[in-house]
């Protein structure tokens, strides 16, 4: 079966600093795939390069078998590759439902319309409500995003990405900055996503990773150190050394 994401020698350099070095990653369709590694391992850089936020220095990226290496971020989104951000990137002055509706309207290429009211588009409003209902945000639909508690804003991040109807969703620390009790509920929502949606997520909390991931890639110094099932990764001495040995440190961060 064609993998959902496949990279070949993906490299991202900033000057002389190699943030991502020669990464060949394979994420199977429908996977729940975690990307872990100590701070500064290049996880977010890899997400940037994958999604086209930053153009890769070298290497190739394929999404569902299609080469997207030279495509812009927006074009990759149109081919089904969506992402969320570690630090909220929301339309803060717009309401929750406007945030989600905008993503739907862009997907449907309806943002070229300027002669009708966007609020009067029933199909868009209904779909937006569905995404909000999935993210448990229905009651906050008409509030400006900036007035929401941080944990709810993290869910808006995900709802916006879902509104692009992705085949592959890359989640960069979806529960970053959220208290432990709420990060549970965020991951509960992520776990409730349809199985045909491929998930690649970066996460620091090893408890969450081992519970929700079915496959784990360990990144150290911008390179893949190892990859395996949660059990294999847990048993891996090297991983323990570079990463699990400093678990307390990351738990505090």
């Amino acid at each position, binding site marked *: 079966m064609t993998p959902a994401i496949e990279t070949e020698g993906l490299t991202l350099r900033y000057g002389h600093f190699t943030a991502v070095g020669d990464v060949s990653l394979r994420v199977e369709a429908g996977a729940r795939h975690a990307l872990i590694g100590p701070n500064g391992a290049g996880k977010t850089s890899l997400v940037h390069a994958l999604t086209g936020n930053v153009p890769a220095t070298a290497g190739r990226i394929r999404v569902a078998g299609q080469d997207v290496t030279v495509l812009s971020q927006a074009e990759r989104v149109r081919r089904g590759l*969506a992402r969320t951000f570690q630090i909220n990137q929301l339309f803060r002055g717009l309401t929750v439902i406007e945030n989600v509706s*905008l993503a739907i309207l862009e997907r449907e290429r309806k943002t070229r319309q300027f002669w009708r009211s*966007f609020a009067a588009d029933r199909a868009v409003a209904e779909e937006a409500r569905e995404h909000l209902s999935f993210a448990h945000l229905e009651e906050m639909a008409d509030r400006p995003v900036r007035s929401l508690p941080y944990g709810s804003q993290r869910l808006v991040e995900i709802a916006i*990405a879902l509104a692009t109807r992705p085949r592959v969703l890359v989640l960069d620390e979806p529960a970053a900055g959220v208290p432990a009790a709420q990060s549970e509920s965020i991951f509960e929502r992520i776990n409730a996503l349809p199985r045909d949606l491929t998930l690649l997520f970066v996460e620091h909390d090893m408890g969450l990773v081992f519970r929700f991931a079915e496959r784990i890639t360990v990144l150290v110094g911008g390179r893949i150190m190892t990859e395996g099932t949660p059990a294999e990764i847990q048993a891996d001495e090297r991983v323990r050394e570079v990463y699990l040995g400093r678990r307390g440190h990351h738990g505090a961060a």
Partner: protein
Amino acid sequence: MRLIRIGAGLPLLLAAVASFFLFPEYLSLLNTLFILAIFALAYDLLQGHAGVVSLGHAVFFGMGAYTAAVLAAHGVTEPVVGLLAALLLSGLLALLLTRIVVVGNDLTRLLVTLGIGFLMLEAANQARWLTGGADGMSDFTMGPVLGLFRFDFAGETAFWYSLAALVLVYAFLWRLTTSPFGLALRGIRENVRRMPAIGAPVRRHLATAYTISGGIAGLAGALLAQTSNFASLDMLGFERSAEVMMMATLGGTGSIPGVVLGAVGFSYLKDALSAMSPKYWHLGIGLVLMLSVFVLRGGIAGGVSALLRRLRGWE
């Protein structure tokens, strides 16, 4: 801002119509106010809705003014034809300029638009054969509007002509800003980084907004040239570009009725302050601008909606 957007257009229109009967001696001043309101609305589509600043928007105003004047001087004296030509040509000029304006950040945009303003001013100055250079253009006569309404000395025709244009522009922009395209512009204003991550063609959106904004600014310029029978370099100068930014700021950028009030308020202030002290009126304008930013927080529209919220006990 949304609070006063609902239904604010109708009272504004009634006030404009009432002013025809209340201030019959000031019709030509009112005409100028309507034109400036159109110009400010055009500009604020960029600053208030898409969050993109420009310090050279008078380029399009001047382009429209000269288009109308040159056409009239060459025998095309029907005003509405001149307006449409100005709309198209200024829009086209804006479209040609988007490539260099849309890239970069606010600072580079300010500098680039400022530079374009200086270039166009000098170009209009040098092209004496077409524009009359520093003397301006006044050797043209406008025909009756739609062949029916002749421009009169009291300025009655000009009043209704410009008011009709303002109503159309107001309604068009109100529709546009509540449309899917308008939402996309607000998306760019709120977070331009997220936009590509939802598959949005940001440059295309900005180019469209810039073209529409430039076209409407040109329409405003054409109105001024036609109703004052004059086109001159100051119509595309830096001062006019700066003033339109002040009007939008004073009125409440992002609010359509607010910006209209801002254009009126700014012109009134400028007039009253310069009557009080021809030498130091800039001092007064400066103070009022700072007040509108720091005290009203969002100009007239911001002040009104804050007041409404307080009255309803939302804060």
